[in-house]
């Protein structure tokens, strides 16, 4: 039973305590339930900071390991195995922070079935944290699939008009992808007689022709989650229909589970296949960058615009990862965080205005700046951060990624990076065009008729942490790169490059 007291076990499963408390509360005490959920998520942040304080950034290996034999009969060799390293620690911190922020943003937005909502949300946090910490493929798969369930309910119950369609599409699309990964996991388990990832990496020597197939099975699962072009079509639906908190978590964390999967599993487990596949992934990523930006520009719904911009931004992350050099990989992990922060912020802000106007159509707004200046400032900063303005976080990530992609031996062709760079310009176009239509010019229909209120204190508090990180990473990214560098170095050292 000592595994319960391990720091990482506490971090992963602490939200369950909140779930238990909420289950025994009266559904009518909505505010009390909200406070319990918020308190739980704040304590979870505390635990994640405690874990961070014990984390040694100079050590490239897995740390704070909690490894216990779980199922060791019937030729299974499955561990309860949680650990953290430089590749995952930032994502874990982001998960706990974004969860608390999301709970805060639902304070007035979710009035119906608050109890169920908070239960699902905290369960989702358990799943997400587990995905980033699990070092055993079976355990990972359980967390990975489990995240689908609460998210499915969050979209399906509290979403927009087409919520049921979006929820089922999200569930089936993701499940269809990950189910082939299950077979690949089984193959690895039979091959290595263990599901522990470090042991499998150490054993290595998977024949190259089989590596390709396994790589493909994992890639389909992760690519759908990222989502890479052309398997992205669930994303706009899910985002548009999901409630704000759902969108924030979806964009901020769930998509990162896909890119994280590539880092944690594809690259170290299948090194030969990774090198072989790099140019192809770069190709798809480049198409995604341009396509996502292009489609974003054409959107009339501001939430859909941000959703498609995610396809574009995650394309950067992918091309950076498969540049397979330290700049590219470190840049793309940082960009994963950046995207979580800036896109999360954009979804939050859109949600705040939607709560008042109940429309997200860009053309009915206009002149918001004059009426809601605080909202405008926050929106401007987040938009600029998302499009990669120097001095804000997006720039650091994208610049490093492009630097890596240009010089990448694995991709082998600087044109991919060249074309991807166009995506940065296009981002400026669609983001500024959106900003101009919503905030500048004469007051639009909705701006005119509604008695719009500016952000209140709760909403400002929700936004502040994100804004701080935008500037921090933008102006002084060194501490973040210092955390990433040793682990990235170790990850890449094993590749046959």
């Amino acid at each position, binding site marked *: 039973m000592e595994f319960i007291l391990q720091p990482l076990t506490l971090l992963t499963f602490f939200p369950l305590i909140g779930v238990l408390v909420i289950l025994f509360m009266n559904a009518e005490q909505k505010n009390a339930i909200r406070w319990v959920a918020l308190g739980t998520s704040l304590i979870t942040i505390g635990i994640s900071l405690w874990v961070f304080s014990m984390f040694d950034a100079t050590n490239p290996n897995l740390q704070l390991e909690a490894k216990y034999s779980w199922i060791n009969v019937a030729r299974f060799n499955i561990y309860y195995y949680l650990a953290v390293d430089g590749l995952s620690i930032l994502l874990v911190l982001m998960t706990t922070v974004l969860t608390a922020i999301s709970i805060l943003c639902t304070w007035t937005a979710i009035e119906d079935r608050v109890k169920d909502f908070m239960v699902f949300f905290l369960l989702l946090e358990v799943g997400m944290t587990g995905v980033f910490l699990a070092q055993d493929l079976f355990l990972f798969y359980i967390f990975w699939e489990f995240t689908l369930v609460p998210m499915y309910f969050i979209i399906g119950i509290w979403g927009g008009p087409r*919520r049921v369609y979006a929820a089922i599409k999200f569930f089936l699309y993701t499940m269809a992808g990950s189910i082939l990964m299950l077979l690949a996991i*089984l193959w690895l388990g039979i091959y290595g007689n263990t599901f522990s990832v470090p042991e499998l990496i150490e054993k290595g020597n998977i024949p190259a022709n089989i590596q390709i197939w396994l790589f493909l099975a994992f890639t389909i699962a992760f690519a759908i989650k990222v989502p890479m072009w052309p398997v992205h079509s669930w994303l706009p639906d899910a985002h548009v229909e999901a409630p704000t908190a759902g969108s924030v978590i979806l964009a901020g964390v769930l998509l990162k589970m896909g890119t994280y999967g590539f880092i944690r599993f594809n690259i170290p487990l299948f090194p030969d296949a990774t090198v072989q596949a790099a140019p192809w992934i770069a190709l798809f990523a480049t198409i995604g960058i341009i396509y996502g930006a292009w489609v974003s520009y054409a959107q009339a719904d501001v939430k859909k615009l941000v959703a498609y911009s995610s396809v574009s931004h995650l394309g950067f992350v992918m091309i950076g990862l498969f540049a397979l050099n330290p700049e590219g990989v470190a840049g793309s992990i940082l960009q994963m965080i950046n995207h979580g922060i800036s896109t999360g912020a954009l979804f939050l802000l859109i949600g705040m205005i939607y709560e008042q106007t109940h429309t997200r159509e860009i053309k009915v707004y206009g002149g918001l700046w004059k009426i809601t200046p605080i909202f405008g400032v926050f929106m401007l900063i987040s938009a600029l951060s998302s499009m990669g303005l120097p001095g804000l976080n997006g720039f650091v990530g994208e610049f490093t990624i492009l630097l890596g992609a240009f010089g990448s031996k694995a991709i082998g062709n600087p044109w991919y990076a060249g074309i991807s760079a166009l995506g940065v310009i296009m981002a400026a176009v669609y983001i500024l065009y959106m900003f101009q239509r919503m905030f500048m010019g004469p007051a639009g229909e909705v701006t005119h008729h509604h008695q719009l209120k500016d952000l209140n204190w709760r909403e400002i508090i929700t936004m502040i942490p994100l804004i701080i990180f935008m500037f921090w990473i933008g102006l002084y990214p060194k501490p973040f790169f210092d955390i990433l560098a040793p682990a990235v170095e170790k990850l890449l050292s094993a590749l046959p490059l």
Partner: protein
Amino acid sequence: MTLPTFTDFYTLFPYIILTVWTCVLLLVDLFIPKNRKSITAMLSALGIAVTLGYTVTQVGITGKGFNNMVALDGFSTFANILLLVSGLFGIALAYGYNNRMNMQRGEYYTLLLFSLTGMMLMSQATDLIIVFLALELLSIPLYVLSAISRRLDSEESGVKYFLLGAFASGFLVYGIALIFGATGSTALNDIFFAASSGTFSLLLTIGAALLLVGFSFKVAAVPFHMWTPDVYQGAPTPVTAFMSSGAKIAGFVALFRVFAVAFPALSDDLTNVLWVLSALTMIVGNFVALSQTNIKRLLAYSAIAQAGYILMAFVPYGNKEVAPIAIASGLFYLVAYTVSNFGTWGVVIALEKAENKGLELDDYAGLAKKYPALAIAMTIFMLSLIGFPPTLGMVGKFYLFRSAMDGGFVGLAIIGVLTSVVSAYYYLRVVVNMYMKEGDPTVENETWLNFTTAITAIVTVVVSLVPNILFLLASTAVF
């Protein structure tokens, strides 16, 4: 001619206890007044519990009896325990329902017990004659039970089940006859020696194939599944619940034993047949289920599809190294299926109203708001049947797919996982209705029913997190 010894009786003791108990109960029931039939129900549950208690003491003991016609081994004990638990669930689901639907009669319980004895005999049979005997013993009470509510559709269901069941028995008997002709014996071991002596006639192959057809009817494998939706829909729901678990377990257990013991030599031919059978069952069951709007029909097709997954475990039966693991994974999945299946039917029974009302998917709309606990339980069962964590169904499928891959049947495993995605769609429709639509359902509140639903839901989740014991039991349950 030697007289049966104590050892002979010992091998069949659980079966004997239950049979005697049932015969006595049949008489006792005559003296129980019509409005006190709860006593009969209680007594039958007690009989099962006693038998279960005795069966548990036989764990780890092996033996043969009655001239090698029956065997007691880990496999039969595992199956018997599962069957007896199914019997308990079957009674727990039926009691309140029978009251509510005005069909509370003592015969219900004695018939259920008789059927259960047949199933237990099936799991111990090592001679084709006993297999046939057991099959009839388990089937005939089920035909009657299907028709017991005296509604037209129930009677139709009973007759249909009887006719097709008789047809299937015909295949089985004919197959046994041919095998006897080819090998000169009906004992599984003798058949094994005759078959593996090198030359065996075409008769044997045809006989084995006919046996397979007969069993396929019983476990509802495609293309022998046509009766299932109608019978499952027409029969009283608790009967369906018992039938879709118990009869399926018995059918699979017999299939496993007969083929793995007697016909490994035929595996070159039969493995391909089983491959196709399993793939077809998964594909047809899951795809046809997509368009169902009645929950009983939906679950009938789901039961067909689940049979396909269990069959998958059985495809590499001829491979000496893989077969024990594969059969263990089949047993494991049978447990997962049985538990989730009873839970699901428990929820269906809770919502069912007289005159077949409350059985459409639309009737589940709004369940989560009014009865959150029931909706959570149903969600757990649906996730388990899809094979989604954190449920027993997920662990079961993980085990099944691994044994398929162990045997080198990656293609079949791929079909298995892809059809699981298809199944997610229709299982989730139930969840969509419960959580995402507005409605005002009413639910029966019966102690034993609630108890069954709660217990199965808890087991489905908890055992999936600590599955070691179940793995150990299943993997040591070999013949």
